[in-house]
């Protein structure tokens, strides 16, 4: 009985406190115990290496690819720093931008780009950390990017309009990020109590803010996509998002895809 009550209170504290710390999606330095930090690092390194292999292959074929990835990475970093208004929490939150990145440059390169972004944020903004970098890459990079990318592709294949697909991509990539973060936090912090309890508690505490935040991320992603599609459809073609033909690189055929 007492156990249940404590859990309830726990949930309440978390619900009030975690989101208000602003950067709840980054796992802060020092939270992950060594063995978990190492595990997440191992997974992260595998995916980053995969992304780097893609980068090498693609930029050998088309040197244009490397600056494009760097610039889109910078843009996604900047977008992830944009405050967007959140009515329920009464504050601003930041979009993750990983869904958008996954649409534009694919999931594996998004992981590479997120690893750089997360390192910069850890060093210069005190968001996240070095020992938790692996964990953050797994949740914010890998989970977000692959989910978002898969959702976008599947919904396009299912015949949804690009806007709707972009919306779903943004929303699910955001939710996936939070699910992964909750999982990592719970596994690190559950201590003597049960992991499932903790996971449920942390997950539930994120829920009230994360449900709307995911929707907002979806709306912003769709807005960004729409803006690009209206203003410069050729760019989407160029990145292989919509079609194959790339008018940007006139000498080469086939474009940057």
């Amino acid at each position, binding site marked *: 009985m007492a156990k249940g*009550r*404590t859990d309830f*209170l726990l949930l309440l504290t978390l619900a009030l*406190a975690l989101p208000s*710390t*602003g950067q709840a999606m980054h796992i*802060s*330095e*020092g*939270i*992950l*115990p*060594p063995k978990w*930090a190492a595990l997440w690092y191992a997974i992260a390194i595998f995916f980053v290496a995969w992304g*780097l292999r893609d*980068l*090498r292959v693609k*930029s050998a074929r088309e*040197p*244009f690819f*490397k*600056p494009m990835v*760097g*610039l*889109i*990475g*910078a*843009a*996604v*970093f*900047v*977008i992830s*720093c*944009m405050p*967007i*208004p959140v*009515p329920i929490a009464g504050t601003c939150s930041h*979009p993750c931008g990983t869904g958008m990145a996954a649409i534009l440059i694919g999931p594996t390169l998004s992981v590479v780009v997120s690893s*750089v972004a997360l390192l*910069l944020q*850890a*060093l*210069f*903004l*005190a*968001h996240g*950390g*070095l*020992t938790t970098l692996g964990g953050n890459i797994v949740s914010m990079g890998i989970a977000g990017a692959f989910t978002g990318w898969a959702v976008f592709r599947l919904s396009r294949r299912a015949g949804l309009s690009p806007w709707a697909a972009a919306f779903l991509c943004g929303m699910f990539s955001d939710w996936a990020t939070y699910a992964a973060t909750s999982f990592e936090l719970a596994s690190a912090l559950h*201590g003597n*109590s049960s992991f499932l309890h903790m996971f449920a508690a942390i997950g539930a505490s994120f829920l009230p803010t994360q449900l709307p935040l995911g929707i907002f991320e979806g*709306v*912003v992603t*769709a*807005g*960004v996509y729409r*803006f690009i599609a209206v*203003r410069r459809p050729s760019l989407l073609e*160029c990145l292989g998002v919509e079609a194959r033909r790339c008018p*940007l690189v006139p000498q080469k055929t086939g474009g940057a895809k």
Partner: protein
Amino acid sequence: MSLLSEIFSDLFARQDHILTRMDPRTKLIIALGALCAVIFSRTAAFPLAVLVLCLAATLAVGVPKRLLGLRLAAPLGIALVLLVLQSVMAGTTPLWSFVALGAKVTVTREGLLVGLLLASRVLAGVSVMLLLSAVTPAHRIFHAMRMLGAPQGWVEIAMLMYRYIFVLLDLTAEVVAAQKVRLGYAGMRRGLSSAGQLGGTVILRAMDQAVSTNQAMRVRGYTGSIPLGPLPAFAAREGWILGAVGVALAGLFFATEALCK
């Protein structure tokens, strides 16, 4: 936005003093060592000692208190939550209890200690990174990582991103201002749609920039990989520094761990 560019500035890392002159590899290894020691620590004493040392050093190299406060705000919040959470969650020795919302909450000694440990680890870790970034410009950190084995492709992307983040931040500030004077953020719905336009503008500009940057790179001989220059040799002096600081850290670690058992 302005808050961001304020925090995200490597101005202090470009001053000239002992710590900025040190080889970035030395600093990176020391920082990593300190961070590992922090997460391996079993009592709050070592992290707290690291915290105090790093904060003192950060202030000493001239980072304003206000900026330090800004950077520490989020981690402080997280540390507090961890402390509260852990102290009511686990443990057997009750310290005191109170009734909240009809439930009896007991703060335990063990819980409090675990909470304190976690909170101190968070703050210590963050302070180490703040010090590192306050005395090392980002591009030197990237070089150091390359020397320590980070793949070339990763470093190239990191350098490009770092360079153009500033260009795009300026752009973002400009676009936000232009939207504001046309009331783009009056209300939730408009705010969201303006955020979409803003993100779109940033990405479009980034892509255009990529096209022209690629051309400018080609004109200067780029064929698919950015040359990063040779790696300087690791000076003997740096080895001594590394050894000395390493021994000092280890000493501090074992002393605090033993004393506070």
